[in-house]
């Protein structure tokens, strides 16, 4: 039992990504139109060339959310949602549709318009229920990782806080080089470390922001890719898993890992033929919703051995100039997290980096990139891992 994957069978030939931030003067329709038309232009195709669409968004319930503003003439538009991995899920479905031969060219697009709600942080409502589900906020859910990780690996709270702050500092440092980011400023370590507490030990600067944004990708069969662009990027692996929620039921789970991420990474590496991710992966965009998430992800994705990611962090291993740059675009930390858009925004950075178009953030000759998107909370989540590459084979 294993997923077989579609290595090198499909390629991305065009992408678009709006700037992420507080778009007070733009609606979700505006953002979708901008990301879609940027993608059409990037691939050099006419809107009529696209045969089918996958729309990732949490706020709206149907494909009409996309077909209306784009005036898509009587074509399939599928709206998908899978928690915070929604954008990646749209891409995965779109890629499989092309690989199946059902369509020649498709678009995956994601959008979220969070700043119109007036609420602090993300708000996702539950269906009618018995009132026992609890109401933990996202930062609280993820902060459960921190004391557990610190205790297991012998970090006192001050040292632990240094490690978490270093992750946020690194992501903001990368975001400062990105004109599409919500926050384009470096933030001093001391400011991060002493930011007001949101969910102890997490301060406000350990949390990703709340923003609006949209991103889109055009996908074709690999053998057709050069009809549209000189340097497409090839899908090496797409893995998606939903966990059984054991972490909330069984004391075996210790809140220092996401078993869902371990499973999806293992699957993705098998599909892509990656045997040593720390050496083979050139760069990664990971789901840094909160700083302890990124810390644990380094180990779950096989970038660091168990219990050593904090040392890699302090040594700069994941910095833009490090051995394995993580979140070179600034991550959720610099972009905020418009849910449906985030997974495709991560892929947009891979698109730029693999094609040598990342400007001041450009990593030297990257070959393989990884994106990781996560939805839910420690103990009960969904995880997506993709591997993409510059070359076939």
């Amino acid at each position: 039992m294993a997923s077989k994957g579609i290595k090198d069978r499909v390629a991305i030939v065009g992408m678009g990504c709006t700037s992420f931030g507080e778009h007070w003067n733009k609606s979700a329709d505006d953002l979708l139109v901008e990301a879609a038309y940027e993608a059409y232009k990037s691939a050099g195709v006419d809107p009529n060339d696209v045969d089918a669409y996958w729309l990732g968004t949490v706020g709206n319930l149907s494909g009409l959310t996309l077909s209306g503003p784009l005036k898509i003439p009587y074509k399939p538009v599928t709206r998908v949602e899978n928690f915070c991995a929604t954008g990646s899920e749209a891409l995965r479905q779109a890629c499989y549709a092309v690989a199946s031969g059902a369509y020649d060219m498709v678009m995956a697009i994601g959008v979220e318009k969070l700043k119109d709600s007036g609420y602090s942080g993300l708000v996702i409502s539950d269906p009618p229920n018995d009132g026992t589900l609890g109401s933990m906020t996202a930062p609280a859910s993820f902060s459960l990782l921190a004391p557990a990780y610190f205790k297991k690996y012998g970090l006192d709270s001050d040292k632990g806080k240094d490690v978490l702050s270093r992750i946020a500092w690194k992501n903001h440092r990368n975001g400062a080089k990105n004109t599409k980011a919500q926050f384009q400023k470096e933030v001093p370590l001391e400011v991060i470390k002493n930011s007001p507490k949101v969910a102890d030990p997490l301060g406000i600067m350990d949390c990703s922001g709340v923003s609006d944004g949209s991103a889109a990708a055009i996908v074709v069969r690999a053998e057709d890719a050069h009809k549209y662009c000189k340097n497409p990027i090839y899908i090496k692996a797409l893995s998606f898993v939903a966990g059984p929620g054991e972490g909330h039921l069984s004391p075996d789970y210790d809140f220092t890992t996401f078993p869902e991420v371990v499973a999806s990474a293992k699957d993705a590496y098998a599909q892509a033929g990656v045997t040593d991710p720390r050496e083979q992966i050139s760069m990664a965009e990971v789901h840094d919703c909160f700083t302890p998430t990124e810390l644990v992800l380094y180990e779950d994705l096989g970038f660091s051995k168990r219990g050593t990611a904090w040392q890699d962090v302090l040594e700069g291993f994941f910095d833009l100039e490090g051995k394995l740059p993580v979140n070179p675009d600034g991550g959720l930390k610099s972009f905020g997290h418009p849910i449906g858009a985030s997974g495709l925004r991560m892929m947009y950075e891979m698109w730029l980096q693999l094609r040598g178009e990342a400007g001041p953030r450009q990593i030297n000759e990257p070959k393989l990139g990884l994106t990781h998107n996560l939805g839910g909370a420690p103990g009960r989540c969904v995880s997506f891992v993709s591997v993409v590459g510059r070359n076939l084979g």
Partner: protein
Amino acid sequence: MAGIVSYGSYVPYRRLKRAAIAQVLGVPATKGERSVASFDEDSASMAVEAVREALRNAHGGAVGALFFGTTTPPYAEKLNAAIIAAAASLPSEIRAADLTGSVRAGLAALMQAADAVGSGTSLAVAAMADCRLGAPEGKAEQANGDAAVAFVVGSDNVIAEIEASASFTREFLDSWRAPGERFPHSWEERFALTQAYSPLLGRAIQTVLERAKVAPSDLAKVVIDTPNPRAIDEVARRMKLEPAKIADSLALTVGQTGTPHAGLMLANLLPAAKPGDRILVVSVADGADAMVLRVTPAAASYKPARSVGGMIESKGDVSYGNYLKWREILPTEPPRRPDPERPAGPPMFRAERWKFGFVGTRCKACGTPQLPPQRVCVKCKAFDQMEPYSFADRTGRVATFTLDRLAYSLNPPTVNVVIDFDGGGRFLCEMTDCEPDKVAIGDQVEMTFRRLFTADGVHNYFWKARPKR
């Protein structure tokens, strides 16, 4: 003869120093402190604590009746006793009623329970609780306290027999509150004291002692529960009672708790009572109820896990500001978060044993306890091999935790804990009655039934963890 088989008491964790009220309002301070139900407690949830404790020590038959006395019922229409019965996992074949309208409803509940036993019910539970408000600057705000107590009444294994009882009812105006009003009004004190309380106490005591064929000098202890403490001195003088026989009114440590007060004073002295002791209990308000109890030899071996004294010792302060917020006397800026949604009727109905009783499941194939109830085992994946398994009385340890400052709460930060139960099972929930900066991995916790929030008039009850008291 019907009598008390077991009892349980509950004094909430928080205390408000009376001087702290005086300091803010600039009014004269009275001595001591009062108990304060937490922001997530009400009369029903406190009664659940007392009833669970009482039931732990009750043996000898099925519970067939539950009477809940309170002047502060969470629901004006909807049976509050049903919430308590569900949370205490009592059987559904049970006579249940709320008794309200007067703080005398406490002893009335106990008498109803005794009558039910007298007419053939094996065990009957009398629960009583109050969470009364007093308007700021008033005497009641300082003098009142919040608490609950419960007695299981039966005819076997009795620790205190009810030898006689007497009840009087009079119509007079002393304390009143109309529907929709939050604070009670009261008439000038001397009127009720001289014309109602003193005469009623005298008649009730004389009558019940005659019925029990007991002289005042035969009494080991006297519990006098009255809205006006001056009435106690007058009764003591008239009956020529030694001060040592007068039960502690708990005025300095807990406050006047209303409906449960007579029961709470009784529960407080029972652990030290000796077989053969006679105890007079009398409660006056809108009339008077009195009973004479005789402590039996069985009391000598009765060991309650929790005592009123222990509950009084286990405490933490609340500021007057927080008290005003908790009781929603002081309105606060609403959070920039959506209002909580009311829980839905059908899912609550389906989940009654889980939501109210905290009953999960255990896999019959591999023995793994798990909660909430599951159909497929988390461990061995066996399908539909589950049996009910209660976590309500299980203790556990904190596996990890967080302090959520973003979540809306009347008492921020919200402390969330992952608990691993002794004997198996994990649960993620809120922790209450704790000092957030002292929470640590490995802390021992126990479960408590609380009101999480109220939305559209629906009280959402569920369980939280708290440090073991």
